[in-house]
């Protein structure tokens, strides 16, 4: 009462002002009066401040007085009408809302008025021209009116058939709301309000399926139009609300329980006679169709005929908008759609039986079954699955991943609820056939692309720590990675289903056994499928827990698992051999790449499944894995790394070296047998990988293989590719040998320096004062020796006054000098013998012998016409000489025997050969010392006469007198020439270190003049004092 009092006080002035205008005579009244509009706004503003259901109906009656007067006027403007509607809305909200406050009589009077105000014509034509604000006001009023009626106890009877006066208005209100809904695609709020109004009306007020059935077609039509608008014109939230309202409407109209729907199924031939009898009564009858049994008197609207006709329309509508909604791929819409479909299947299963297919398909497509309805519709589900299976080729070819996922969902439900196993077998068969068609379509030209490694040297660095084996993916030929991944998941899922039915081994066995005479591509597809099926067995530990209760079953399952794995492994072995035979000498094609990757994937999967039981089988497959690690194909290498890592993790505690070392015997056997069979192309790469992964220890087990390689070099030295591979292998062997026996380069120098003597100006060329003191000490020591002798002589002969004279005389009186010399010679000879026999190298003699053999073969092949081979040989030689220097007597012998051949390469006109040759000679000089001093001097003379690379420079400093004095490169050399020059200069400078004493200053100046044009001056000046002197002259005088 207090609130009413306050409200009256607030609203009174506004109402009085409004009344003055409302009470004007008809001829004086202006429907579009701005004053009227202002008064209406003022009243509406006041009313909007009040809370819901906070005022009494008396207040509403008071406010409504001028409104009623306005409505008696012949016309009213649009804006004015809008505010009248808003005022009515607020009155309904605040005064006429709760139970008992809104009399039925008032409602009956008010409802037609409202519908008329919103839309004055039955066809709602004028409504199109109204503004959104106007429409929104109309929706507000209708919504609030329905909510107010809903609160009254008479809400069920308000629109009943017993009161036909309101039915036209009811129909009109529904059409108004539908029109607004249809015409406002861009105004979400407006659409939401319209939908909310309809929902309240249908569910809470009418709630009579019989009555709603009269307005159903219009509603379904409008809803379908909204949901089928192209693109994304309709906001997804509006779609969701529309589905919700439509679901409620359909349930109210087609509820199986309320309609008492029965599906008459013909089960006995004797019923035909009954049918004939009924037919005589002239009553339509349909077999296997829904029949309305509730009403048999023919007085109700919803009869069997009605059901037959309208359900067809519903089906058409569903088939129209459901695909559209699915295409939007919106999570909210999908969820709402799943709920919508589930509700229909739950409540209208029989009445909308003809819509079963589209509803089931929708759930399958959404991969959702929130109310677990699909198991109740297995027959229809099976039809859907069969259709998709027959289109599997297209699904795969056009990479429709969503359909594949849906198919997996559907099959899962089928298999879980169906005891028969025919479906999964059909799936496997279709999958196999479809994959075959997709991978190699007959209509397409099969381009045999050869995979060639870009770099001449194989990149086999494996970083296992960063490798995630679960990410290894084999892209199916002609399919994207995404589609391949989806297919893999699909197949894996099928494997899980097969495992649950305990028929996986049978399916896999049959699948593989059928491929005996198939083309290789089909074999690979079968293997791919089988492997993905078997991958489901990786969950074996959980299964074991289940089977612990049934010991016999557990054993059975375990043995079956092993059996199928062995079958697949054997299949892998056969395929691997076939692939190797095809690849040998021809290179890897794309199809070969996929085939090998599949085999590796299979081995990895089976290892994961069998775990420890895979150990005995590894001996047959270790070669295949290691072979793949050395593949020129990046994809194969990647997959093989994953496979190797899996095997190592499973059987060897994650250690790849242990895996290889433990199986080295089998690797040797495999490699040897292949060498003997003439398959030589892959051996080098494989051995390289083995060396890199497991270290030099493996090489010791491969000595027979290495001997075979040497023999092959003898027989097939004309094949440059073969020789090149072998020398690439030799490089790996050398590097691993060095890694094992030589800790660092300092160790080599320490050993070598024991034998290398430098022909330098030592002890001269001093750079610090201590050296001065040292030489003085040496001279003093000599004098001390002389003094000692003098003392002795002095004791013997006191008359000798001169120290020098005494020294001279003592020398003359040494009668045993010849004997001493002889003794010294004997000592030298003895030490020489001892030195010769002593093995000083940290490298074992057997390994050292390998180095000598490699060097010998390399030296012989340095005249090979293949440039790449010559370069590779020189690179290998460059690595060998430092290691050979650990046994000096053998080193110098090899240096002497190979010097001429390598020098020919230094003098070659091909600069790409000159560069490694110079690097090699640099090492020879560095570790041989003055042994090659004379050879180096001769080499320089040859370089001046015959070297092509040296002609790139000005080699005669004397001609510089007439040219520019600046010392710099006068031309820009191409990279190959530049590299060769730098390499040659380093070689020459290394030679200068050992020959600066032996060669004349004039020649040395000539050498330095060449070098200074390539290497920075500062680097050269700091080599020694004499070189610094010469550099000074070149820079300052010439």
């Amino acid at each position, binding site marked *: 009462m207090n609130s009413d009092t306050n409200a009256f006080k607030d609203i009174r002035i506004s109402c009085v002002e409004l009344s003055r205008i409302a009470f004007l005579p008809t001829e004086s009244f202006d429907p579009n009066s701005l004053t009227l509009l202002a008064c209406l706004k003022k009243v509406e503003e006041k009313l909007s401040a009040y809370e819901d259901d906070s005022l009494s109906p008396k207040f509403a009656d008071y406010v409504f007085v001028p409104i009623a007067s306005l409505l008696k006027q012949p016309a009213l403007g649009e804006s004015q009408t809008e505010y009248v509607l808003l005022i009515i809305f607020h009155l309904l909200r605040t005064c006429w809302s709760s139970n008992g406050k809104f009399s039925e009589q008032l409602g009956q009077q008010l409802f037609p008025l409202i519908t008329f105000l919103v839309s004055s014509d039955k066809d709602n034509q004028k409504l199109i021209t109204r503004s959104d604000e106007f429409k929104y006001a109309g929706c507000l009023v209708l919504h609030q009116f329905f909510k107010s009626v809903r609160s009254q106890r008479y809400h069920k009877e308000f629109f009943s058939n017993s009161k036909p006066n309101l039915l036209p208005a009811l129909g009109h209100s529904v059409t108004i709301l539908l029109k607004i809904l249809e015409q406002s695609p861009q105004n979400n709020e407006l659409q939401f309000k319209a939908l909310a109004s309809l929902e309240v009306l249908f569910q809470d007020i009418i709630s009579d399926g019989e009555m709603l059935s009269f307005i159903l077609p219009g509603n379904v039509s409008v809803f379908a139009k909204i949901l089928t608008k192209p693109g994304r014109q309709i906001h997804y939230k509006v779609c969701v609300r529309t589905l919700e309202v439509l679901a409620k409407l359909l349930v109210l109209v087609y509820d199986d329980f309320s309609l008492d729907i029965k599906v008459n199924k013909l089960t006995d031939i004797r019923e035909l006679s009954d049918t004939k009898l009924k037919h005589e009564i002239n009553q339509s009858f349909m077999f296997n169709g829904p029949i309305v049994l509730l009403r048999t008197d023919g007085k109700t609207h919803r009869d069997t005929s009605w059901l037959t006709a309208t359900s067809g329309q519903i089906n058409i509508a569903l088939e129209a908008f459901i695909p559209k909604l699915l295409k939007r791929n919106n999570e909210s819409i999908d969820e709402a759609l799943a709920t919508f479909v589930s509700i229909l299947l739950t409540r209208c299963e029989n009445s909308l039986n003809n819509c079963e297919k589209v509803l089931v398909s929708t759930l399958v497509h959404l991969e959702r079954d929130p109310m677990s309805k699909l198991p109740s519709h297995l027959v229809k589900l099976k039809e859907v699955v069969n259709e998709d299976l027959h289109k599997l080729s297209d699904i795969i070819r056009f990479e429709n991943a969503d359909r594949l996922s849906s198919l997996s969902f559907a099959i899962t439900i089928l298999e879980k609820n169906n005891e028969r196993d025919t479906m999964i077998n059909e799936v496997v068969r279709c999958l196999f056939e479809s994959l075959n068609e997709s991978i190699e379509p007959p209509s397409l030209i099969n381009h045999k692309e050869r995979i060639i490694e870009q770099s001449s040297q194989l990149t086999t660095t494996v970083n296992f720590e960063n490798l995630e084996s679960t990410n290894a993916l084999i892209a199916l030929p002609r399919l994207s990675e995404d589609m391949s991944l989806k297919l893999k998941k699909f197949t894996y899922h099928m494997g899980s289903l097969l495992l649950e039915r305990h028929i996986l081994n049978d399916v896999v066995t049959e699948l593989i056994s059928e491929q005996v005479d198939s083309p290789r591509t089909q074999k690979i597809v079968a293997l791919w499928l089988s492997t993905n099926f078997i991958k489901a067995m990786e969950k074996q530990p959980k299964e074991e827990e289940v089977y612990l209760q049934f010991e016999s079953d557990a054993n059975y399952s375990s043995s079956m698992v092993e059996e199928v794995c062995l079958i697949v492994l054997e299949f892998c072995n056969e395929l691997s051999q076939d692939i190797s035979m095809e690849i040998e000498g021809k290179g890897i094609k794309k199809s070969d790449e996929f085939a090998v990757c599949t085999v590796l994937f299979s081995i990895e999967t089976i290892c994961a499944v069998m775990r420890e039981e895979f150990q005995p089988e590894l001996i047959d497959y270790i070669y295949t894995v290691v072979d793949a690690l050395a593949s020129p194909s990046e994809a194969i290498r990647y997959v093989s790394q994953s496979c190797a890592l899996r095997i190592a993790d499973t059987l060897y505690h994650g250690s790849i070296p242990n895996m290889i070392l433990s199986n080295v015997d089998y690797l040797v056997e495999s490699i040897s047998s292949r060498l003997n069979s003439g398959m030589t192309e892959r051996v080098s790469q494989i051995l390289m990988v083995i060396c890199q992964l497991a270290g030099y220890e493996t090489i010791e087990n491969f000595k027979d293989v290495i001997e075979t390689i040497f023999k092959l070099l003898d027989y097939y030295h004309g094949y440059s590719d073969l020789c090149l591979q072998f020398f690439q292998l030799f490089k790996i062997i050398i590097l691993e040998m060095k890694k094992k026996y030589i800790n660092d380069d300092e160790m080599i120098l320490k050993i070598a320096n024991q034998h290398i003597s430098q022909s330098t100006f030592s002890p001269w060329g001093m750079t610090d*004062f201590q*050296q001065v003191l040292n030489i*003085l000490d040496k001279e003093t020591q000599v004098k001390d020796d002389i003094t000692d002798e003098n003392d002795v002589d002095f004791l013997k002969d006191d008359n000798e006054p001169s120290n020098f004279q005494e020294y001279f005389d003592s020398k003359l009186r040494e009668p045993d000098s010849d004997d001493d010399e002889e003794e010294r010679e004997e000592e030298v000879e003895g030490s020489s013998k001892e030195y010769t026999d002593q093995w000083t190298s940290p490298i074992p003699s057997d390994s050292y012998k390998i180095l000598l053999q490699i060097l010998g073969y390399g030296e012989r092949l340095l005249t090979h016409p293949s440039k790449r081979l010559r370069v590779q040989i020189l690179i290998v030689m460059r690595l060998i000489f430092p290691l050979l220097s650990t046994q000096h007597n053998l080193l110098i012998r090899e240096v002497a025997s190979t010097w001429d051949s390598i020098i020919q390469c230094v003098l070659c006109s091909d600069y790409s050969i000159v560069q490694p040759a110079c690097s090699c000679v640099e090492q020879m000089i560095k570790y041989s010392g003055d042994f090659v001093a004379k050879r180096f001097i001769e080499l320089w003379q040859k370089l001046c006469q015959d070297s092509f690379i040296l002609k790139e420079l000005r080699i005669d*400093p004397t001609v510089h*007198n007439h040219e520019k004095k600046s010392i710099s490169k006068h031309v820009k050399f191409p990279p190959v020439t530049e590299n060769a020059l730098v390499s040659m200069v380093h070689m020459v400078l290394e030679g200068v270190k050992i020959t600066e004493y032996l060669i004349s200053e*004039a020649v040395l*100046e000539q050498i330095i003049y060449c070098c200074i044009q390539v290497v920075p001056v500062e680097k050269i000046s700091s080599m020694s*004092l*004499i070189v610094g002197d010469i550099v000074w002259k070149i820079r300052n005088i010439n």
Partner: protein
Amino acid sequence: MTAVTDIIDELNDSSLSSTRLRELCLQLRKKTDTGCAITVSDEVNLIESLSYHSISPGVDIQINTDVLQTIDYYFQRNKSEHDEIMCVLISKLQPLLLKRKSNFELKEQRNLGLKPTLGMSLKEDNLMQAWVSQGGLKGIPLFYVILLHLKRRDISTNLSWIIPGILNILDDTTDIRRIKLRGVLLLQTLLNHTFMNETNDSKWIQFSSTGLFPLFEKTLINMCYFLPPSYNADETIAIWRVVFPTIQSLYKVEFLDNYTKYQYHLEKFMSEIILQNIIPRASLAYENLTLYALECTMNILRLQREGSVVHLQRLIFVLGEYIVRNPFYTTFPKLISKTLSVVSTLIKVCPNERIVAHRFDILSLILVTYDKCSQEDALNESILQQCKETISWLLNCDCAMGEQLSTLSKQPRFQLLFEFS
């Protein structure tokens, strides 16, 4: 007044003494002052007779300056008849020259690089002996005089007989000092007096145009290796005295327009011949050879000036290892002095920057020399002074060794060296 013919007869007398030869030369120069006339024929005969005495006939090559002055006097007196006289002299000389190879054989010889051993044969020996017995040796002095007075413009027309004449003498293997070495002298004369006696000789033939450099260089370089014990030390010095100047002349004439190449070859000679072969082999065993070599070294260093920097390290090494550190070093005072002189020359000639780089080497040479002499009672005033001067020169190059030298000067053994009055 004695007749010219009589003098000629006396000159041709084999019993003529050196004293008498001198008197006759003086008389000949005085006689002409009186203005007496002399026929061209007599003058030719006179010059020819005198020429035979221009070089001593013995083993030693001694140039008779009196005879040369007299000959020069007569050539100056009769300038207008110079060409006529030369023609006659040349015609008299040519029959005396050794002829034993045809042009074809000579070309073949050149291709082989003039290796004497390849031409050895009994036939050639017989030819040589016959030539000598027929008085062929007399032609060499005449050849010498002709080369001395041959004019620049006449070289090209006479080159065809001069070159073979010299080469045939150089090819001799029977007598180094009386035959082969005189061939070297003739070559030296040709180079010094014929190809370099004109200041404006661009229009005349250049020695470098003849293409004879490789031929002569190889022969001369080969003679540098005539060392003990294969040869007597005196012979070696005699050879060097003629060969070394000739080599330098050869380089100078050949590379008149290319100083850099001249330096290059001088470097090569210095390094390969003197520093790598002669001094290490002569060492202290042949003092005279080493002294001569060191003197030659100093001369070349002065010629090269700053360019001698390239020899700095090797020269220090050779001096240090083969001379200074030799146990018998102190018994050769001349060598000590000469060694220190070479070091001083190095310090003066080479750039300071590089001397600083080698300062410890040079200091060691001086300290070891001083220490040895001091310890072995060989230190005399002259050597001490030379050591001090050499150190002084070294310190003038901004060597920045004050601290080190201060340490040394506090040691008793070096105290005297670092005392400066």
